[in-house]
């Protein structure tokens, strides 16, 4: 039986995986992967609530904009990573402690 809670559990699993990835990794790109997982968990929740609780399409629109923002975030974030690598030859999160190069 598929209910709302089953979708929420999957969303929770996605969120927790993203959280653990973000906390435990020291690689900036891996941290961005974790952010993608967390954003997906949020979008999945919106769609699940749209289906099971109130049947209007607003949740889909919210998820659509979450996807848009996730893509923009990934583009800018990876741009910063690449720039940082060009300057410091490192993608270690602890090296990114200074605001100036």
């Amino acid at each position, binding site marked *: *039986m*598929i209910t709302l809670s089953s979708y929420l559990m999957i969303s929770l699993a996605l969120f927790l995986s993203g959280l653990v990835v973000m906390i435990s990794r020291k690689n900036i790109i891996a941290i961005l992967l974790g952010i993608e997982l967390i954003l997906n968990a949020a979008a999945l929740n919106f769609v699940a609530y749209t289906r099971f609780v109130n049947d209007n399409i607003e949740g889909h629109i919210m998820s*659509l904009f979450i*996807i*848009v923002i996730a*893509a*923009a975030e*990934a*583009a800018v974030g*990876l*741009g910063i990573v*690449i720039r940082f690598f*060009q300057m410091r030859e490192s993608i270690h999160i602890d090296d990114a402690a200074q605001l100036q190069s």
Partner: protein
Amino acid sequence: MSSPNLDVYMPIVILMAFGVVAVVGALLFGRLLRPSNPNTLKESPYECGEEPIGSAWSNFNVRFYVVSLIFIIFDVEGALMFPVAAVFKKFNEIGEGAVLLGSLLLFILVLVLGIIYCWRKGDLDWVKSFKLTDEQIKQLNGIEES
């Protein structure tokens, strides 16, 4: 909660399963037929007979990234424009086409601004062209003469 409308995804799942079965099946079936006597030389990466130096997983030029960056922005804009494009005809039939055309054109205009910026700044050039100074041209000519 049987919902027959989900059946439309059944062929997709079946076809993807066929893809997996084809690859796995052919590799397993082939294991019975094909020879297997690997040696060091055979397993080395092909480099025209030379001994490979270093790993191939090295740094690449950043222009690959810039291309994929522009692509993903266009991709997302396409994803936003598809539903609007799908309802354009319906809106036009009820006489509200002007509003939709205006918002669509505004959307595309902003998109075009981005690509014009990248064009002017040279991000769309695969090989960056640059102008030589007179001194450099002289140096180049000197090299050719000597």
